[in-house]
């Protein structure tokens, strides 16, 4: 029905004859991270919002980033093969039930498999509708979201009612997965972090969050992210899969079995989304509760778009959104307020640079940026904390802003969302 709706993001194709940019060098990102830590620690000292990068907040952020990142990975696999998947939400909900049911009866490791299995089942329905029959991808995704919600809550009532500690909308408590720590660093880092010294405490907090009490599934999720990058961008299989998302007809003429690749990609996508649901059940909480996914499938989709359909960017988006989630859960309205200061100053500087750079051109973008920066700074100065609702809104607003102001830099797979029929090349 609306096959062209997702293809209107302007693309910046390299001009012929100009070398194709392969992205920025690695040290650029290291520098960005370094400057980021500097800014955050300065803001922390100025505002006294110590929870801004405490090990507790960061550990929570890492844990909350995982389901978002896994859902985003699900989106990435499917969209790289040219199938838009907004059914991630439904597949994730199926995964929460699968993780809880199999986790309760057979232990958490089988629970992981159960979550993946249920997600794959959702993916299979999406694959059947979009790849085999050729239904519009968005329509099928919406239907799967409805179906996934219904099936999971029906099954939950059917299977969890009457179990000890369980009920129609809630599973019994589940066994936890083991956690890992790098031995012998926790104590020293804790005392360093407690000193609240500029920069030292911040680095200690970050290190502690990354080295102590890491859940096994968190490590698996990170490995899946790296693995996805390797498989999709460094192997012939990945090249073929991505070619199905960029130019399926061309891929077909080269002998790629486009339908098979798309099917596989959507099944993997479902599995990832299911695992994201499993993470919520087995790690983030230790039970299934109706509605616990709280729109995280959509945030995962947002993280993937935020990250420009690339694993690295997706990870960045997931961490950012996981962080706002964590801050909100810890009631950190003051932390979000603290961020208004660097964001405000940054926007003002950026807007000023835009104005200076194109003195002849239209000043609209620059003026808007400066005004937004001033507003953010004013908000910082006039309030003591940001209401929780605004903290919760942050991921969605951030994604909208990125889409609105950086859409020229975003580049989705060229044939994403287009219904492909075998044998229609040429």
């Amino acid at each position: 029905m609306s096959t062209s709706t997702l293809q209107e993001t302007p693309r910046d194709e390299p001009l012929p004859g100009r070398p194709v940019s392969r992205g920025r060098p690695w040290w650029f990102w290291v520098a960005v991270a370094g400057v980021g830590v500097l800014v955050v620690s300065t803001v922390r000292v100025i505002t006294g919002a110590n929870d801004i990068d405490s090990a507790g907040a960061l550990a929570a952020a890492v844990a909350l980033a995982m389901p978002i990142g896994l859902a985003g990975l699900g989106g990435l696999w499917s969209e790289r093969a040219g199938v838009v998947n907004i059914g991630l939400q439904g597949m994730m909900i199926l995964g929460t039930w699968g993780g809880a049911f199999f986790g309760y009866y057979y232990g958490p490791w089988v629970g992981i498999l159960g979550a993946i299995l249920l997600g794959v089942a959702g993916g299979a329905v999406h694959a059947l509708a979009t790849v085999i029959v050729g239904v519009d991808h968005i329509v099928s995704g919406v239907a799967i979201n409805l179906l996934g919600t219904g099936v999971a809550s029906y099954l939950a009532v059917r299977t969890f009612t009457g179990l000890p500690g369980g009920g129609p909308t809630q599973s019994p408590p589940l066994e936890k997965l083991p956690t890992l720590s790098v031995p012998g660093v926790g104590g020293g880092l804790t005392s360093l972090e407690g000193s609240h010294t500029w920069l030292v405490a911040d680095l200690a907090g970050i290190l502690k969050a990354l080295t102590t009490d890491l859940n096994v599934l968190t490590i698996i999720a990170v490995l899946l992210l790296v693995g996805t990058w390797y498989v999709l961008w460094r192997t012939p299989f990945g090249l073929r899969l991505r070619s199905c998302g960029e130019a399926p007809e061309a891929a077909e003429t080269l002998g790629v079995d486009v339908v098979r690749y798309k099917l596989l990609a959507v099944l993997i996508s479902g599995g990832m989304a299911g695992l994201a649901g499993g993470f919520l059940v087995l790690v983030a909480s230790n039970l299934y509760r109706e509605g616990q996914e709280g729109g995280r499938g959509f945030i995962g989709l947002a993280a993937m778009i935020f990250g420009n359909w690339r694993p690295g960017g997706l990870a960045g988006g997931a961490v950012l959104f996981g962080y706002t989630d964590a801050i909100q859960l810890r009631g950190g309205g003051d932390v979000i307020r603290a961020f208004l200061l660097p964001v405000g100053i940054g926007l003002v500087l950026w807007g000023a640079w835009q104005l200076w750079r194109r003195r002849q051109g239209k000043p609209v973008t620059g003026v808007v940026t400066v005004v937004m920066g001033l507003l953010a700074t004013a908000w910082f100065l006039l309030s003591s904390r940001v209401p929780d609702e605004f903290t919760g809104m942050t991921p969605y607003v951030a994604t909208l802003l990125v889409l609105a102001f950086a859409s020229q830099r975003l580049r989705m797979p060229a044939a994403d969302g287009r219904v492909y029929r075998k044998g229609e090349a040429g």
Partner: protein
Amino acid sequence: MKRLDWRRAGLGLAAPVLAVVVAFVVTTAILLLAQDPVGAVWGQLLKVPLPRQLVAVFNAATVYYISAVAVAIGFRMNLFNIGVDGQYRVASFAAAVFAGQGWLPGWLNIIVALLVAMASGAVWAGIAGLLKVGRGVSEVISTIMLNAIATYLVSFLLGKTAVKVQGSNATSTKSLPADSRVPGISVDGMLATPSKVYGLIVLAAVVGFVYWFVLEKTRFGFDLRATGRSETAAVASGVNVKRMVLTSMLLSGAAAGLVGMPLLFGQDYLYGDTVQSGLGFAGIAIALLGRNHPIGIAFAALLWGYLDQQSNGLQIAAGVSDRLVLVIQGVIVLSVVIAYELVRRAGIRMEQRRVARQLAAGDAVAPVTEGAAV
């Protein structure tokens, strides 16, 4: 020609019927797998509803209908307004706050509140429209984000404007003044029940009529449908596609703004944190099932309302969770879109075969008639 039209009508009806049959089979399979009593479940779901329940079916359908029309306006233009959900919540809240103040007397208050709802729904949808027109942002993504933002925004504003009710910790807007409530329509004459149909069922009928009239009988509607069918053809005939996108997004949002109105003026009289959510997504399903046709949507909305109503008794009659109805609805949507696609392709194949047959016959016949004429 006549025979062909019959065939097309048959094909058109085949898909929804097929979908309902598939939903029946799949649901039965799920019930068998889960070892739930199949007979008792269908017995309850297919029971003839009581008069009181029939009224409830129509009331639910009223709300679903407006929601589906809002979605359908976008669909006809090839726009996917997933944001009806957020738009109607923002609009219901705005209208409830406005009408609750009781600045205007009686019916005037109601009419202005309806306009407020339409305007706020349109504004919320307009953000997505502007982003699409100005920055090329897909409306699917932006409306998903706007839905979530609407949830937080409304809960924040509700916290700011809520009135405290003694002995309850529910937060809600101020209750409507008694003269600004729309009385229900009594159906005593037809059904033996004291319960009443929403007065604003009239609003749903008006929305449906305007939708049909504007799309099928005006130049604007023609341009809109043309743009939805083929953007390049529309551009070639002088349609300003960007303005078209923005206008249809605003119209869709305005219609979405009305979704919550029958509930506000006919049942709840306030907007609180217990207000029904998810109506926008149901609207998508219903618009798909009804093929964006004003009458088709009406039947689909009634089916949805009927399933909702009949599922209430499932727990008591069959010991099965009423969530089953969500499964049934989901399967219906999915199988209906698959069925439409299969039927559409079957239609194309039949057409091709017919043309091929005619051509073959024509080749054979043409020289003969020519010869006969000479």
